[in-house]
């Protein structure tokens, strides 16, 4: 007849007392389950929504920091000097981020609109829309005033290819599955470093021109306008040959159903998008860049900048003269985003910042945060009250069980065993009470959880927000953050009692019982068996 056995017998053979205690624990359990269920639902809704979002962090110049710094400067020379050396995002900074195992891809995109080469060797994919019809019918006119004040006009050529280039191997667009390499491959780091003239073309562009991997195409980085001719640019400077190393397909077709289809330029058609390294773009444009630089230097001999050979675009000066505006880092897991920003924030330079792109997420998840906060508050309030109630009940029960304690002590039972018996008795009724509450609590939690969320949203600023959406193919978009709506969050909000919550309930219950036994334990430790038994006798 050890103390565990005695505890079990006391619980089963004093049913009225046990039922009352079970009822108390049942009520406590229900309240705790509702609180934990709602809180967990809010937290998991946030996590699930966060998981749906792209795991992107933007590394860029923080213009707020720049402006604050400039405002703090009082000396005009200092301000000018600052603007001469305006802070830039450095290629090597982004390379450092790439060494973090959480970073999968870095996007630092440059976009250029290019032309059909002078010999028209490569045709673009036609949309056959109003814009193309206009181009064929009348063409465009480019006009300017000459030195004598006379107006000159010439027909200008429309750009037809959209060249999207990255400073780093891989691209978020391909990693996300929006674009897929169906033949060949993406360019690698060596090709970027060596500025090799390689590119990827769309399946439709390849089909229209009978291209396959390994073929060479000619593109025009510009058309030979009279302006460029004045600079000394010749056709050979504009036509550049590229090797097709990959053919891609994509999920963003520009169709007559798209809102921007009718007046879209050919280069706005994702089929006419050509991917290549940014260094290759630099190399392709270098002859024109150099001639333009030389022409301006010749025309403006007083300009210091143009007289410095270090500023002249060249292969040697490539890193200096080519800069990136920002970089978007794609991480392995959306849940790593905030930690990644925290980890790298301290090593950022004075004017750069890492943005987790989660302001909208934070704003939308505010009702859930408030709900979670209240739910947690209720849980702790209930737990504290439960401890007080159970402590009181146990302490009062002790008075009626003094005699039993005296007997146990008189037969040599240690006070620790007596306390152990009381603890097990409470733990037994707590387990029964909490087990029953798991069944009822999960049903109640679902109902209450949904209605409190509705009430929370109704009182928030988000209640009357309308959502806008366009079916719009935007080739310029370099904002990789995922748009989310309140509906996304709400759709993920589901109050359910997971095994984890059930485990939490039992742990909390055990905690309540443990703490509730502390004060009665002190009382037992002070008991004198002689006094108890003599009083009794």
């Amino acid at each position, binding site marked *: *007849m050890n103390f565990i056995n005695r505890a079990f017998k006391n619980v089963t*053979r004093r049913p009225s007392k046990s039922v009352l205690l079970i009822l108390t624990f049942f009520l406590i359990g229900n309240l705790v389950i509702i609180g934990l269920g709602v809180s967990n639902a809010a937290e998991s809704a946030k996590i699930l929504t966060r998981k749906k979002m792209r795991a992107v962090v933007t590394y860029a110049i923080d213009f707020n920091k720049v402006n604050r710094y400039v405002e703090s400067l009082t000396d005009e020379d200092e301000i000018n000097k600052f603007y001469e050396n305006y802070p830039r995002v450095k290629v090597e900074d982004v390379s450092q981020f790439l060494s973090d195992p959480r970073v999968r891809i870095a996007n630092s995109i440059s976009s250029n609109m290019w032309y059909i080469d002078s010999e028209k060797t490569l045709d673009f994919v036609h949309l056959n829309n109003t814009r193309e019809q206009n181009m064929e019918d009348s063409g465009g006119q480019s006009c300017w005033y000459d030195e004598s004040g006379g107006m000159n006009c010439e027909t200008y050529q429309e750009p037809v290819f959209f060249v999207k280039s990255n400073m780093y191997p891989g691209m978020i667009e391909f990693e996300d599955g929006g674009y897929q390499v169906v033949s060949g491959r993406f360019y690698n780091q060596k090709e970027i470093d060596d500025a090799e003239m390689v590119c990827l073309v769309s399946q439709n562009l390849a089909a229209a021109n009978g291209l396959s991997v390994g073929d060479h195409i000619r593109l025009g980085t510009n058309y030979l306008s009279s302006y460029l001719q004045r600079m000394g640019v010749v056709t050979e400077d504009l036509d550049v040959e590229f090797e097709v190393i990959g053919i891609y397909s994509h999920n963003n077709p520009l169709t007559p159903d798209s809102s921007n289809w009718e007046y879209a330029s050919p280069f706005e058609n994702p089929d006419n998008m050509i991917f290549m390294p940014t260094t290759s773009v630099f190399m392709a444009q270098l002859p024109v860049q150099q001639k333009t630089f030389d022409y301006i230097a010749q025309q403006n001999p007083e300009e210091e900048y143009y007289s410095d050979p270090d500023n002249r675009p060249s292969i040697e000066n490539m890193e200096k003269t080519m800069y990136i505006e920002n970089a978007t880092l794609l991480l392995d897991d959306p849940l790593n985003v905030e930690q990644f920003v925290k980890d790298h924030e301290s090593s950022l330079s004075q004017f750069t910042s890492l943005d987790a792109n989660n302001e909208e997420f934070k704003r939308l998840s505010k009702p859930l945060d408030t709900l979670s906060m209240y739910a947690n508050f209720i849980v702790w309030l209930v737990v504290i009250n439960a401890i007080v109630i159970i402590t009181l009940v146990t302490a009062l029960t002790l008075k009626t069980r003094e005699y039993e304690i005296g*007997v146990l*002590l*008189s*037969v*040599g039972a240690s006070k620790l065993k007596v306390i152990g018996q009381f603890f097990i008795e409470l733990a037994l009724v707590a387990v029964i009470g909490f087990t029953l509450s798991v069944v009822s609590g999960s049903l109640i939690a679902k109902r209450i959880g949904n209605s409190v969320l509705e009430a929370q949203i109704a009182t928030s600023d988000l209640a009357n927000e309308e959502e806008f959406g366009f079916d719009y193919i935007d080739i310029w978009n370099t904002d990789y953050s995922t748009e989310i709506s309140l509906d996304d969050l709400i759709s993920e909000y589901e109050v359910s009692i997971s095994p984890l919550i059930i485990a939490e309930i039992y742990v909390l219950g055990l905690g309540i019982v443990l703490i509730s036994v502390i004060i009665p334990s002190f009382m037992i430790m002070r008991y004198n*068996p002689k006094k108890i038994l*003599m009083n009794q*006798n």
Partner: protein
Amino acid sequence: MAETVLKLENINYSYIDGGYERQILKDLSYEFEKGKFYTILGPSGSGKTTLLSIIAGLDTAKSGEIFFEGKNIKEIGLYKYRRNAISIVFQQYNLISYLTALENVMLAMSETDNKLPKDRKNVAYNLLERFGIVRSKADRMVNQLSGGEQQRVAIARSLASNVDLIFADEPTGNLDTATEREIIAIFKELSQEFGKTIIVVTHSNTVSEMSDHRVLLRDGKLNEL
């Protein structure tokens, strides 16, 4: 010379009552021999129950030493002493109400460190049967038994832990004369047949007449009659 099982040396006990110190036990010394049946007599308020509490390890004396089989009970430890060396039978039986008679007996078995037979349940049944509690009654809750039966259960419990020293405080105080005689006969049998030392605090002449030694507690000291 019989073996001494319990030796009391210069026991003093007092308490404050209404601002005055009341000396209950005064340099009390006495030796209890093994296998004897003792009754401690004395007028009300003489300190009989206090003395029993002290020698049973339920309370401690202000000064003086108690030796059980030559060892100081403070060195043994009061819990261990109560668990392994002694057992007590009270006037109110002091059984645990939510346990059966059998479970009350087994309670003492579960607490002691003394060597006991493996089949404790059967031993407990046999003990109860020996004192007139048949199996059907042994499985009843104790509050379903009569006063005499409850006291028999208490005595069975006191033997269950296989101790040599049994104390009883007015064990027959609530019983009729016939039952009183039965209980005393049991005590007598325990001392004579099993070599247990029985120390009973009582007012009853019937009980004291049946004991081997009648000891009077007066003026804080024990004197054999």
